[in-house]
């Protein structure tokens, strides 16, 4: 049986942060068995043994992947620390979020009974106007009649312009 090829990378826990080293190693644990050992001078040895089924190319790429992940993790740690309070504030705001109530309609200064009486009066007047001006009905004020219809055609006396 072929021996699986173990690889390792030395990271500096002091410079990179132990959390970043852990998370970077952790992110590779789908492809490899990962083991972290302390070294002198605040360093950490990250050992990777490719899991069965991981091809040679992927196995060879593990150290490079770890270094990339470590850089990304260092950035994530920094970003997370800088935004911890803001993020918590925003998420708590979201948890307690309630949509704003719609704006109330402007107050006319009338009681509901007065408003109803006014509306009823308006409807009554509209009804009467409709009835007065409906086709075929008489025009009591003569509004719709022309001047000629009312007073007859003028002769002679009309000033010429």
């Amino acid at each position: 049986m072929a021996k699986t090829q173990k690889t390792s990378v030395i990271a500096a826990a002091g410079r990179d942060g132990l959390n970043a080293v852990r998370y970077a190693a952790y992110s590779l644990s789908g492809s490899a068995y990962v083991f972290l050992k302390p070294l002198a001078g605040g360093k950490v040895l990250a050992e990777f043994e490719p899991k069965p089924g991981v091809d040679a190319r992927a196995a060879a790429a593990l150290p490079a992947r770890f270094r990339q992940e470590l850089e990304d993790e260092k950035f994530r740690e920094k970003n997370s620390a800088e935004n911890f309070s803001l993020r918590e504030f925003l998420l708590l705001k979201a948890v307690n979020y309630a949509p704003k109530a719609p704006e109330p309609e402007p107050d006319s200064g009338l009681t509901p009974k007065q408003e109803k009486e006014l509306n009823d009066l308006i409807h009554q007047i509209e009804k009467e106007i409709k009835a007065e001006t409906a086709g075929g009905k008489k025009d009591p004020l003569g509004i719709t009649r022309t001047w000629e219809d009312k007073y007859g055609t003028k002769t002679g006396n009309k000033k010429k312009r």
Partner: protein
Amino acid sequence: MNEKKNSPLFFSGGIYSAEALRLAAAVFSARGGVRLTAAKGGTEAALSGGINPGEFANEALNQQCRIDLSARNSRLSGIIVTKALLSASGSSKKGGK
């Protein structure tokens, strides 16, 4: 990583907390035996019942990362989970019982 069969694994206390190893041992309890012993500078884990040492080491790292993360995010996570539970139970409004 120790390749000898049945040789205990040593986990440095500076990288893997005892709590992480206890949690990992609990996860593997159905698969075989894990005996944890305090040693100088860390913990020794003796595996039996065919437990893959690599799998156990990965689980230990998983649990350690979870412990770290919980220390930071447990308050926020707890608030969200609590809201969900209380809303479902009706404790935060009418209904339920």
